[in-house]
């Protein structure tokens, strides 16, 4: 049986892991190479590295850092942040990434998903969606770009479906309303997207209590959960998280 995945996320800025609330008020959370190795050794199921300054394409230092993190990570490793062309995915894959996440560039030019999937395979093309609840409506979310700073009029669920058609192999879905708040994932959003597509959905934004992880994997129908603060600041270890999920009948890979 396929297990649900627990994925720590390294938000990286100036070669350090940082974490903020709703992408603001950043605080230091450690060294990406050390943290990556730690999570890989402790039994995390995957690792995500996001360059929050979105300079992957132009910044050799970041690519070198990806290489250093990858050298010690023996679980699937996703890298994203400012990718604008399929060629850049080629560079990151050669640096040790297994998958790449694309966000703003795909909104501007959806064809990048098709081209990347054709060249490198759908399994390494992750579409990242930063979704925000559309004011004064229920059950509607719109896509935001540029790290959540710029709203669009694109419907998040329709966008997820379109991305699947174009060849995305996975969706990394962040609730901008919940991100960094530790108040729980947006269950309604996650479920709506997971039910609308056949590719895996990673829920992100709002991880707080272990109950909130259970809820989004169960009621939210997510295939995986992404979390940052709760792991970086030691609220829970990967082992504690998995043991809790197991006790609540969520299938996980034992540590």
């Amino acid at each position, binding site marked *: 049986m396929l297990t649900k995945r627990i994925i720590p996320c390294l938000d990286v800025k100036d070669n350090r892991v940082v974490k903020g609330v709703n992408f603001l008020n950043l605080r230091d959370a450690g060294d990406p190479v050390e943290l990556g190795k730690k999570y890989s050794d402790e039994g995390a199921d995957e690792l995500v590295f996001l360059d929050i300054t979105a300079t992957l394409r132009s910044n050799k230092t970041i690519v070198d850092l990806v290489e250093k993190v990858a*050298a*010690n990570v*023996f679980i699937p490793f996703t890298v994203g942040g400012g990718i604008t062309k399929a060629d850049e995915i080629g560079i990151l894959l050669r640096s*040790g990434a297994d998958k790449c996440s694309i966000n703003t560039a795909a909104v501007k030019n959806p064809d990048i998903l098709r081209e990347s999937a054709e060249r490198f*395979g*759908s*399994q390494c093309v992750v579409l990242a969606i930063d979704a925000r609840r559309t004011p004064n409506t229920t059950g509607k979310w719109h896509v935001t770009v540029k790290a959540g700073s710029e709203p669009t009029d694109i419907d998040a669920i329709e966008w997820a479906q379109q991305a699947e058609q174009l060849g995305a192999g996975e969706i990394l879905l962040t609730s901008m309303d919940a991100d960094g708040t530790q108040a729980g994932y947006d269950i309604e959003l996650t479920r709506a997207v997971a039910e609308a597509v056949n590719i895996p959905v990673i829920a992100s934004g709002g991880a707080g209590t272990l109950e909130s992880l259970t809820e989004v994997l169960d009621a939210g129908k997510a295939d995986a959960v992404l979390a940052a603060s709760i792991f970086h600041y030691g609220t829970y270890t990967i082992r504690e998280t998995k043991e809790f999920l197991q006790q609540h009948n969520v299938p996980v890979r034992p540590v």
Partner: protein
Amino acid sequence: MLVIIDYGVGNVRSVTNAFRYIGSDITVSCDPEIIQKAHGLILPGVGASGYAMEKVAPIAEVIKQETLSGKPLLGICVGYQLLFDESHEMGTHQCLGLIGGKVVPIPTDMDLTIPHMGWNYVKFADSMSLFDTLGDGKHFAFANSYYAQVNDPDAKVATTEYGITLTGAVEKGNIYGTQFHPEKSSNDGLQVLKNFVSICREELTC
């Protein structure tokens, strides 16, 4: 010396990182002379198998010759899918034909997400050398939309459940293959690679 065959399909970096981490003497190459000198071969690969077969075609004969003369070969993911007779991913493609069987899509009518992405339990067949010291089965990291239907009386098959029973890994004499990514399957995956290195070493001293 082991050779990771780099035929230009996806990244060989993760595989190289893992072999280096376990202290193995690894060379990355697609030069036929180096492939001939190797004590063991690793055929990685991601993406579509038809495209991969096209790219591997110029060195297909040397890979087959070396393997049929007894050199250990480990195929990983799409590299593993190339070991079979043919693949039905986007058309029909002849593959290396080292193991009887064909690569077909995972059925999409089972209300399961495709790709089959993440960690699944793999149950080993009896006495598979690739899984030495790992017990009856372990979890490994998968990322596949196609799987191999093995049709070869000489092959031992490890299985995984995803709506139907899928082939997780195969072993036939000196030919080994894993649908999952051992290089991305934490300690148990690294043990699989260590086992392959031991197999190559034994072959050398025989």
